């Protein structure tokens, strides 16, 4: 009987939970302009690693109950983290479901065909007019066209 042995805190469990929470929070990074390449992957990798730690923690709690706590909390945490991971994977897949850039899109060095579209107040605006600076003042060095999804 291990009388003098205190039960150890199940660090793997808590570390795993922390990583999963960080994974969820990392979705906020998209709004902060952090450099692009690591970002989508972090919101997927953190929950995966976190869940691995949680599972390790739960295994420990069941395999060595005299030493490690956390059977109930661990099981609940494992279930929750699995759901969070599933949501992260779904979010990842859906966010990247975009058509591939097509050959029909102007490449660097090609010209954008002129077009005229109404602005948000209904006045027609043409690209060529904007580029030639007829809106008063010198013609701009360039125009940035930002195509966005909308429906916010």
């Amino acid at each position, binding site marked *: 009987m291990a009388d003098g042995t205190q039960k150890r805190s199940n660090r793997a469990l808590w570390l795993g939970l922390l990583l999963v929470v960080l994974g969820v929070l990392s*979705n906020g990074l*998209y*709004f902060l*302009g952090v*450099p*692009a390449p690591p*970002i*989508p992957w972090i919101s997927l990798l953190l929950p995966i690693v976190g869940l691995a730690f949680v599972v390790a923690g739960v295994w420990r709690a069941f395999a060595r109950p005299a030493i490690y706590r956390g059977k109930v909390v661990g099981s609940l945490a494992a279930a929750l983290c699995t759901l969070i991971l599933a949501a992260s994977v779904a979010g990842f897949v859906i*966010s*990247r479901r*975009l*058509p591939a*850039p*097509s*050959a*029909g*899109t*102007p*490449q*660097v*060095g*090609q*010209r*954008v*065909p*002129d*077009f005229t*579209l*109404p*602005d*948000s*107040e*209904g006045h027609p*605006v043409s*690209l*060529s007019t*904007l*580029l*030639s600076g007829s809106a008063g003042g010198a*013609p*701009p*060095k*360039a*125009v*940035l*066209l*930002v*195509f*966005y*999804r*909308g*429906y*916010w």
Partner: protein
Amino acid sequence: MAISADPQNVSEDLRHKAGYTFTFLCDPQAEVIRRLALLHPGGGPDGQDISRPAEFLVDRSGTVRWENFAEDVRVRARADQMLAAARTLP
């Protein structure tokens, strides 16, 4: 210029709420979007045809000098990359 397939009143609403001073253009039939091969068929929340996210820096002659196509709708374009490209223009 910000271009989307949103109806005019939605774009104007967004422009006012966010306090933007640049021009918002409306392409509700996605004509220009299609002409530039940027269509994302059924990509809207109710299956509407919308634009895929893309940015083009176009010089005075109408030539593309820089462009960016997001692979992930969550990742925002980098203003510093666009500005660096703009600075190389005469």
